[in-house]
């Protein structure tokens, strides 16, 4: 078995794993019926699905061409930015009351998303005024 044959099989397996996890993430996105649980689907695709596809790209570049390190950067940037977008979607859900209200924090007054400055309280909760 030459290196090209092993490389081809490795690329194919990585592509299949990545595609399978992307598919499962999409099924989750369609299947769950609550906006907070739906949020869990993209975090899966973002990690294993993209990771396996990028690994396939890296193996292909190293076996059949000069090699490429860009995939490492893509993965690093994805891992750094994916939690931030998930965090923002979660905050929007809390604001829109489209999920169960979170329990109050044990030590502090409230969650920072729900923390409204004194001056804006009337705007934030008009039904209580």
């Amino acid at each position, binding site marked *: 078995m030459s290196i090209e044959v092993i490389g081809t099989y490795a690329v194919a397996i990585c592509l299949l794993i990545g595609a399978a996890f992307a598919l499962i993430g999409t099924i989750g996105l369609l299947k769950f019926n*609550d906006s907070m*649980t739906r949020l869990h689907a993209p*975090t899966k695709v973002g990690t294993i699905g993209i990771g396996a596809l990028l690994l396939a790209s890296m193996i292909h570049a190293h076996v059949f061409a000069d090699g490429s390190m*860009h995939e490492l950067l893509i993965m690093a940037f994805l891992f750094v930015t994916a939690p931030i977008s998930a*965090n923002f979607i979660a905050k929007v*859900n809390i604001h829109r009351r489209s999920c*169960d209200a979170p329990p109050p924090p044990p030590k502090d007054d409230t*969650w*920072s998303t729900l923390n409204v400055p004194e001056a804006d309280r009337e705007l934030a909760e008009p039904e209580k005024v």
Partner: protein
Amino acid sequence: MTRAFNWLFPHPLLTVLLTVVWILLQNDFSAGMAVFGLILGVIITKVTAVWWPERPGGVSVIKFLSYALIVIWDIMVANIQVAWIVLTKPNSKLRPAWIVIPLDLVQPEAITILAGTITLTPGTVSADLSDEGHSLLVHVLHTDDPDADRDGIKERYERRLKEIFA
């Protein structure tokens, strides 16, 4: 000497990181590109130092690497668990829950890494921080025992991060 060093490198680790990113972006190593990356690293850290005046404390690199390996392993295991939940559990049997993690960490960098880790491991998403930063709000996709999940995260990730940022 140290003053000159501090003037030139307000964030030495960030300078190294920017240089490495620049070299990786080139996709081809040459001495000229490394020097240019270093120049960029110095300029960018100096210009942005105004918004980030304090240098984060010492970090144990070896412990951080072992932490990264543990997280990558957990991501893979948890991915398969969550894929199983997605494919086999009907919506009516799904029990999502909020869990609240009281934080022992104080450094903002450490809390950021903990929140990022929690989001990257599938099945949990960190949603919010309390207004004074003493607890973290986490949403779990499916759990039978929220307290056990909370203790698991505290024991597995937070304890290690406390050692790293000690």
